[in-house]
């Protein structure tokens, strides 16, 4: 299953709830303000690192760029995808759950 999260974890608990309900081998794509969740050395980065041990986490390139987040500031292991990659993720997973 592909999970998308579009809210900042410092404002809403969407990402936390997504992480606590997604099973292993899930794909998690952070979009819009959701990308703030992937910044390293944050209050959230520990949860992200833990999730990365059995799930894949992606951020949408245009959304990190728009917010001035350089790829060097992301938690190691988080992958960057463009819109084409977003489409591929949606197509390769049989279902999508959008955490709002």
């Amino acid at each position: 299953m592909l999970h998308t999260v579009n809210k900042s974890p410092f404002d809403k608990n969407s990402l936390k709830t997504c992480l606590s309900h997604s099973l292993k081998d899930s794909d998690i794509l952070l979009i819009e303000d959701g990308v703030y969740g992937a910044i390293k050395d944050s209050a959230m980065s520990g949860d992200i690192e833990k999730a990365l041990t059995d799930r894949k986490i992606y951020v949408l390139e245009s959304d990190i760029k728009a917010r001035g987040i350089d790829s060097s500031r992301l938690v190691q292991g988080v992958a960057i995808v463009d819109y084409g990659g977003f489409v591929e993720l949606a197509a390769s997973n049989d279902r999508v759950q959008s955490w709002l």
Partner: protein
Amino acid sequence: MSTVKKFMYVNRHAPYGSIYALEGLEVVLIGAAFDQDCCMAFIDDGVFQLVKGQDSSASGMKNFSPTYRALGDYEVTRLYVEKESLMERGLTKSDLMELTYEDEDDDWAEKPSIQIVERSELGRLMEEQDVLLNF
């Protein structure tokens, strides 16, 4: 529609502070007309939607909590409420409305719709669905 799909409506927001809860409920009622296998999950602040004794009259907003009692008529008979979300908010099952449905396969016996489930169980239930709609 020829094949019945498993739909889960996941509710994560409190009832009056945003439009999510009401919109979600309306989508469930509309979707129920399509004869799919529908259930609802209430997690995080979504559990506040089911708290009994809501009275929004002084706020000028419509109290839509009675509408959850109609869900049984719409054959939405499984409402999963997350145990941890209740506990985190100082709530227990007794703070929630009593919601029931009549079981057609059991001589219309009245049965409770709300099931309290643990977080880990809810994750598994989500994985069983064909379609997940979050509100």
